[in-house]
């Protein structure tokens, strides 16, 4: 290695891959993956979210799952929690809607009002 810039470049790339172990406060997307969620297609929803984030090279978002919250009718349910703002819950999130939510809510900061079922 001949320059410090070279080291910096490797560090930035590698940091993106290990960020999720640092436990820092970041935006979280939570997908309901109870039996009801999975039956309603939550696996595809989650895959679509992952794929969309990867495509857009977004690294500071944590994607996790949760169990049934009791609103099985609305599954697949997706929560978006941004640091400092209220949790937004979307219902009946198909894989197409999931991609939209990433584009509008995560990237542009615009809540997709018509799919929101709760906000707290």
């Amino acid at each position: 290695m001949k320059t410090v810039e070279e080291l910096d470049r490797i560090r930035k790339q590698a940091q993106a891959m290990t960020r999720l172990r640092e436990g820092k406060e970041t935006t979280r997307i939570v997908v309901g993956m109870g039996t009801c969620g999975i039956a309603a297609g939550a696996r595809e929803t989650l895959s679509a979210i992952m794929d969309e984030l990867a495509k857009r090279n977004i690294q500071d978002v944590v994607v996790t799952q949760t169990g049934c919250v009791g609103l099985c009718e609305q599954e697949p349910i997706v929560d978006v929690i941004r640091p400092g703002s209220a949790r937004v819950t979307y219902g009946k999130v198909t894989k197409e809607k999931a991609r939209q939510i990433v584009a509008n809510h995560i990237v542009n900061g615009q809540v997709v009002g018509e799919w929101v079922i709760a906000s707290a």
Partner: protein
Amino acid sequence: MEFYRSHVLVCGGTPCVLEGCKGVRDALIAEVKRRGLDREVKVVETGCLGPCDLGPVIVVYPEGTLYQKVHVPDVPEIVEEHLLKGRVVTRLVGEGLQAGVVKYEEPTYLGVQERIVLRNCGVIDPESIEEYIARDGYRALAKCLTEMKPEEVIDAVKKSGLVGRGGAAFPTGLKWNFTARADADQKYILCNADEGEPGTFKDRLILEGDPHSILEGMAVAGYAVGADKGFIYVRGEYGLSIERLGKAIEQAKALGLLGPDIFGSGFSFDVEIRKGAGAYVCGEETALIESIEGNRGEPRIKPPYPGTEGLFGKPTVVNNVETIVNVPPILLNGPDWFRRFGTERCPGTKVFTLTGDINNKGLIEVPMGITLRRVIYEIGGGIPGGRGFKMAQTGGTSGGCLPKELLDVPMDYFTLPEHGSALGSGALLIMDDTHCIVDIAECFMRFFEHESCGKCTPCREGTARMRGIVGKIARGEGKPEDLDLLDELGSAMQVSSLCGLGQAAPVPIKTMLRYFRDEFESHINDRLCPTGTCGT
């Protein structure tokens, strides 16, 4: 670039390997793939996470959930419940560690700790140089080579107040200075990884968990003193350490972080591994040097000290693993940052290995000056079965034994000697009230008698005589004057032995005589072992 939503860290330290973590890792990888999660979930083998008694241990991120005693049959449940559905498998959580410890970063366990040396242990994949670089790896080396003069590097280490963590507590900056000032065509950096103190396994777990930090620290030391060659003298039994160090050296060479002209500065540095053959005395720096040179591992007469006349007669810096690993963060963050931890006289942290009668056995790192009480009852989770604390031996077998009256003494390199003990290499052996002091004393002396290299008379004869006298007391054949004889013999060994082995061997007995004299006396006067251990 791959993007994963979850990382599963499987502890790959030796204690977990012995519990079968490799099988668990393979099963996790297979199960994650079978469930079609292999593009979303990454399984990473990492270095020691700390709670060694609870292995195999795994941590699932981003939640940071700590699972203990995970075996292959548990894997499908973890994958289905946690990785697929996001539900914590509660039956594998928080049993052995203090009740309720679910998350790895829990304040009652990791929260009391301060991780400088172990900053990457259990966080990164030790076989990936990229993950080390992600955590600011090799940045200190880059800073030294491109922004600092060698004298400035030594100055920073001096100002930090870092002292040797192998046990002798010699100021590291001063040591470097001796070698830097010596005039020679060749100088060496030696990393002492011949960790032989019974009960100490911190260097092993650092080597396994973060091998690159040793290479970086050695390269910085090399730049500071003008050495272009380093050797790591590691115990032959440390198979995993040797394997991971070897891989780390290869990776660093491939990226040009070791080798010629690093960062275009004209500074070159190379590291080689030398394996020890298991002699306790080879942890002594001059015996270690003899062993690398291919001679019998026996200590040299000092002076000359290695700093001016060491390996192959050339000026040599010999530093312990933990000391070296402290170097990169000190240079990166500055000496003032380092002095924020620990005490005024003894800044920084200390890595301890907790063993014996304690609930949470394992590897911890705490600020210098923490009390024994906090280590045992906060991090260690207390003594099993609610039994009483009898004594703690600090610093391994050659360290002193502290009674419960000293539970609140701050532990650092300068305070413990005031009580006849030593911080040493950082082994903490806790014993409950079922153990007999005389029995333990005999066990310790048997170890020293066996490990004495025999070169100097005080150590060779002294360890054998002390073992004999203590054995006699244990058998109920002791005489009252034996206790003074033990004390006198110990003092003679401390002042006349050639190296640290003979000088430190009497320390445990001397502290036992100081704090537990009544137990010796009851063996001698009443022919009675209070705990019923000895056959008096």
